């Protein structure tokens, strides 16, 4: 599904080079729910950006769904991102001017789907996160947890191969955080592969596998045995 082999990422600024990832290798199988932890500045977000094709890397190999992505152009990476990857961010990142329907619509637009297909998907996704009735509301009219659920709906609507989440509960209180985690668990149970960065060991424990990044490298994995591969279910 997602395989990184000796990936290296260096940030160069005027003064210093930061080795954000060094000899970074990781394999994620379909259906897994991987929680990534690690100290601040260790390279978790960097890993996620590369996994999500938001950033390029300096050395190593990265195959996504069997395809080597190292040499792809920006446009091809955009397309792949659009089709294969769903993002959930700590800051929700909804577009404040658009209502929920249109927010979920955003990735579908770049897919070039027909209007009817889009409408169906958006309605299904919003239903799935329990916000179908509020399709016409603006993000500012929702609570933080609800906003994050919209973000999840947006990620799901594109029917991606896997979800990437960077501290999805970081901005939420514990009750809200639990709701969101329940939802991610449910989605995973239906077969979605999920990679989630978190600082919260309690939340990490709910994943099927935990890995830890320290100083740009995976140091410790398989606290838990990988869950048996489940068949992917259409959402």
């Amino acid at each position, binding site marked *: 599904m997602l395989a990184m082999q000796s990936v290296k990422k260096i940030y160069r600024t005027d003064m210093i080079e930061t080795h954000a990832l060094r000899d970074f290798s990781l394999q994620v199988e379909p259906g897994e729910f991987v929680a990534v932890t690690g100290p601040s500045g260790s390279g978790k*977000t960097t890993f996620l*950006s590369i996994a*999500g094709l*938001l*950033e390029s890397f300096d050395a190593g190999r990265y195959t996504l769904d069997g395809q080597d992505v190292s040499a792809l152009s*920006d*446009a091809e990476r*955009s*397309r792949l*991102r*659009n*089709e294969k*990857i769903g*993002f959930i*961010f*700590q*800051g929700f*990142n909804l*577009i404040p*001017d*658009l209502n929920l329907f249109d927010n979920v619509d*955003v*990735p579908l*637009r*770049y*897919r*070039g789907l027909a209007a009817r297909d889009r409408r169906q998907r958006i309605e299904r996704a919003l239903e799935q996160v329990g916000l179908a009735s509020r399709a016409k509301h603006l993000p500012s009219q929702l609570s933080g947890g609800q906003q994050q659920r919209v973000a999840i709906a*947006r990620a799901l609507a*594109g029917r991606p191969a896997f979800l990437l989440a*960077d*501290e999805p509960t*970081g*901005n939420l209180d514990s009750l809200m955080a639990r709701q969101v985690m329940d939802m991610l668990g449910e989605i995973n149970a239906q077969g979605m592969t999920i990679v989630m960065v978190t600082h919260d060991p309690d939340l990490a424990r709910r994943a099927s596998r935990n890995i830890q990044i320290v100083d740009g490298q995976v140091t410790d994995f398989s606290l838990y045995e990988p869950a048996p591969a489940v068949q992917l279910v259409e959402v």
Partner: protein
Amino acid sequence: MVSYYLRLAWLSVKKTPVLSALMVLAIAMGIAACLTTLTLYQVVSSNPLADKNAVTFAVQLDSWDPNEDYWAVNGVPEQLTYQDAKAIYRTGNADQTVLTSRIGVTVEATDASTPPKVEDARLATRDFFSVFDVPFRYGGPWSATADAHGEQQVVISTALQHHFFAGEYPVGKSVMVEGEVYTIVGVMDERWTMTPSVYDLNTGAFKEPPQLFLPFFNVERRPFASWGNVVGWKNEDVRSHQDFLATEMAWVQTWVSLNTPEARAEFEQFLVNYIHNEKQKGRFERPLKYYLNTPEQWLSINGVVSRDNRILVYLSLAFLAVCLVNAVVLLLAKFLRKAPEAGLRRALGASRAAVFVQHLAEAAVIGALGSALGLLLSWFGLVGVRSLYSHYQEVAVMSGFTVIAALVFALVSALVSGALPAWQVSRSQPARYLKAQ
């Protein structure tokens, strides 16, 4: 996808109404300024005889003072002496020959029922009407015989027809011109105004058409008061009108049509022979020189496009440049503010091109609004120009072509000004905005 971008653009325009209005206003003012001056320039610099530019020629002969160059245009008088013009008419053998001169005449009804009026008139040979495309409402030009003999016939304007005959059919009726009876053979249509008035650029290039045309050779019989230029260099003893006709005074505007290259060559040969002949009589003491000017050359030699026209065009283009840079600055400010959203869209799978086009669409919406407003403003601009310049009454009007050209122009300039900001925002790194805000 286009409609999606347009919807997003409209949302964004509404989101910052003041900033958007400022941009629209800036673009509109630039467009309006340019459109106004360019419309003016286009008309002022247009050639109303473009369709026969290759076969119509203003004739110039250098019969001037052997000791001194002629002071104006290309160094050769704009007009011919009566004797030279007459020779071209009688023996030049051009396909068409127009001799013409501007005069002022007193016009009255034959029964003296209305007070006399002084009117702007022209002496002209009958080819004037076909060479300069004068349409007729009634009747037509006088006959070739009447033309050659300078008979007392006249073509009048629709206005004069209304004045003297209250709209009755006038052909065959008479009017008094300078105390003599002239028979009306035709009434010209009021649609006829030639801007610029190529046929006579000496007394301004933007004037009302004349009210009467008289056969040119009436001048053989009697003098008329010239309302044009009569220029001379030689000290000649003039004791009578006949003396005047025989002088070196240049006052006849002369045009010929030469429909084929052979006709042209033949006519030029005629001129060369003629000048040689006259040289033997002691005339044309300067080196042999003549010009056959196309209408386009004629307009340019006579400086119809004034320095002010050009300065205004430069000025308005520079002004438009300022307005567009202003739009670029404001668009840039606005788009960069929306960069996080662009980054998010990139993360969700929008390609760089998609983000670029989305923002360009927004610039286009602003540009479209700006150009619509600009068009409206330039209409007022032209009203203003008409009230400022009394002689541009007929000139400062917009044609369908200018309107469309203006809209395209405005949209293109808006897109150009949107390109840089859209490019900048499309380059925003998707990863950058994902870290906690």
